[in-house]
């Protein structure tokens, strides 16, 4: 090896500069914090938080620690991101395909949707959905039941709670169905490659996923009952629903606005992806006798996905980061609970903001890694 000084020196200088700049900021912050009597440390995380949170996926109240409050916020952020990503993807794919529809009405409607929602600032949309919904939704006592058991009110969406007996047997039956489907698919692929015969995997899969859980009810002793929300009077004009599960309007408004907004961008990615596949591909596939469904599934989509995935990953990241706007409408996400209330109660600005930043970074990188893995999986495998 032949190291040349000229190659190393610039890099060395860069490293030194970076270290110096970071060192300077750390040192400066330390001195200033000391001057102002601010302690630095993460010990507060184990202290009692003594504030409550409206909505939590894990058991939490003010007697738990700040660390648990952090987890509550983190899980709420993940919840809204995951639901948002799922809805945005489904909606985005539908709208993206609709934009390529030869049907004038569908085509124009999809175009209008995309242009409308992607050109209005997200925060405004969140406020709109939240406050418009609040104004439009009925008070609990005026709410009409949907299907007799759902109640959409200003205080949230109340849905029946499932009360299971022998839930584990039901759960295992689903697992068994999924494993069976995977095995059958692998088998079907082998059969097709060896004998050219096609097995109706899709129908079999649907059958399995219904029949096995059904069997668990019939012979496994699984019982399911519903707890329907019941109106309860708190005062002359204030009511709530008791029993059942309640989804706060903040969660609904936030998910709705994030999905509607992000779906517009995903729709454009999908459109670009499909249009990016050469017309000849489709014609060639049709000429060898594939059905239109097979053309889409076997020829167009595998190629389009390669174009769609990378920009869609960006949209997933955006959605996750945008979920921090939750603080504006009282959805207790990471920013509201941890970088909001916890920061205020402890005054540990630097610690909490750095933890929050690191958390978002980790979340984003996880999504990136996952999507890159998927992207690699569907990439052209040269044989």
């Amino acid at each position: 090896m032949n190291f040349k000084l000229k190659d190393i020196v610039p890099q060395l200088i860069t490293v030194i500069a970076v270290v110096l700049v970071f060192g300077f900021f750390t040192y400066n912050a330390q001195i200033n914090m000391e001057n102002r009597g601010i302690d630095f440390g993460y010990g507060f995380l184990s202290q009692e938080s003594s504030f409550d949170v409206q909505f939590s996926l894990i058991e939490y109240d003010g007697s738990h620690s700040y660390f648990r409050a952090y987890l509550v916020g983190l899980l709420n952020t993940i919840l809204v991101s995951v639901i948002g990503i799922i809805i945005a993807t489904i909606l985005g794919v539908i709208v993206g395909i609709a934009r390529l529809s030869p049907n004038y009405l569908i085509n124009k409607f999809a175009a209008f949707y995309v242009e409308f929602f992607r050109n209005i600032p997200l925060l405004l949309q969140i406020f709109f959905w939240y406050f418009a919904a609040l104004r439009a939704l009925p008070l609990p006592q005026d709410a009409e039941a949907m299907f007799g058991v759902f109640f959409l009110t200003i205080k949230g969406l109340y849905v029946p709670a499932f009360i299971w007996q022998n839930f584990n047997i039901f759960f295992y039956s689903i697992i068994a169905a999924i494993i069976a489907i995977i095995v059958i698919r692998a088998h079907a692929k082998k059969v097709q490659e060896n004998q050219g015969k096609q097995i109706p995997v899709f129908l079999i899969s649907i059958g399995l996923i219904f029949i096995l859980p059904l069997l668990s009810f019939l012979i496994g002793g699984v019982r399911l009952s519903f707890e329907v929300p019941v109106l309860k009077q708190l005062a002359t004009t204030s009511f709530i629903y008791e029993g059942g599960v309640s989804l706060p309007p903040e969660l609904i408004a936030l998910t709705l606005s994030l999905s509607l907004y992000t779906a517009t961008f995903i729709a454009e990615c999908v459109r670009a992806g499909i249009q990016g596949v050469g017309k000849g591909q489709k014609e060639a596939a049709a000429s060898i006798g594939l059905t239109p469904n097979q053309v889409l599934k076997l020829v167009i989509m595998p190629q389009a996905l390669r174009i769609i995935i990378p920009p869609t990953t960006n949209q997933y990241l955006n959605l996750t980061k945008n979920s921090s706007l939750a603080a504006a409408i009282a959805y207790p996400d990471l920013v509201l609970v941890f970088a909001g209330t916890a920061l205020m109660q402890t005054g540990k600005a630097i610690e909490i903001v750095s933890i929050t930043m690191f958390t978002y970074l980790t979340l984003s990188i996880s999504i990136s890694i996952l999507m890159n893995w998927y992207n690699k999986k569907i990439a052209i495998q040269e044989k």
Partner: protein
Amino acid sequence: MFKYLKQLTSLVAMVAVLFTFTTESMAAKKSKTLKNTQKKGFVRCGVSQGLPGFSNADAAGNWTGVDVDVCRAVAAAVLGDANKVKFTPLSAKERFTALTSGEIDILSRNTTWTLSRDADIGLTFVGVNFYDGQGFMVRKSSGITSTSQFKNGISACTNIGTTTELNMRDFFNSKGISYEPVAFEKADEVVAAYDAGRCDTYTTDKSGLAAQRTKMKNPDEHIVLPETISKEPLGPVVRQGDAVWEDIVRWSLNTMIEAEEYGITSANADMMKTSDNPAIKRLVGAEGELGAAFGLDNDWSLRIIKQVGNYGESYKRNIADTGILPDRGPNQLWTKGGILYVPPAR
């Protein structure tokens, strides 16, 4: 090689310059804040984002309120002109960071004085300009007239980042009532959500409830319940570590209260110079050398009284006459049955 050495040298020089700046700023000088304020020509004051009676901006951007008057008093004392204040509206969440990071020099933003805030986070509370307590607002139509009628499942709208969240938990826990806290970042959203019917009750400091009620669609439909669930002494805050500045702010506030006690108003302050009472003469700068201790002239307190008025005038102008809280309650002088009692200016 030499080419890079030259770059390295300039880099080191740059870093050295930056360090010099810090060491210079670290040097403990007598009231750096006072010096900076006089150099800038205005007092940097952190206020709320709009709380009628305490700190609220009108359409033309003029700030009024009892919290605003504290900053104006300091400006009158230090700069000679009560209007030389730069107001920075801050959310509850931002306020302490803005102060400790040096973005503002006084935080006068209906802030509750508590042990942990005073001791923990590099702040010093200089006094109390409003004695408050947390209460609850409900819709009149709900028929609720007391917190004892609260039932399990009640939803309560409030702000994040305040003592309110903690008091609320203490209160509901001690009563054994389960509740749904709905916490917003900004007061305007809290009011909008409560007004729309999202919550059964709205909880914050009673003065805040009274002030926000005036912003609602139909103020008469709401009442503030009589119970007070906490002590909320609100007062101005300064950064820790500048004792002189701390004293200036503390005694600017005290001057306003003491002036009321001795009946000195913005209208009669000049005439009081010839008073027989030495305490009055000290307050209007006709006797003693009180300003010297802060590095100010002797008319500092006279300027406060003349330009801003005494505490009673400020209260009347901002809180009573605007219909927010006509009754002064505990915020009355100790001589008149309240608890406003400040150390003597001598």
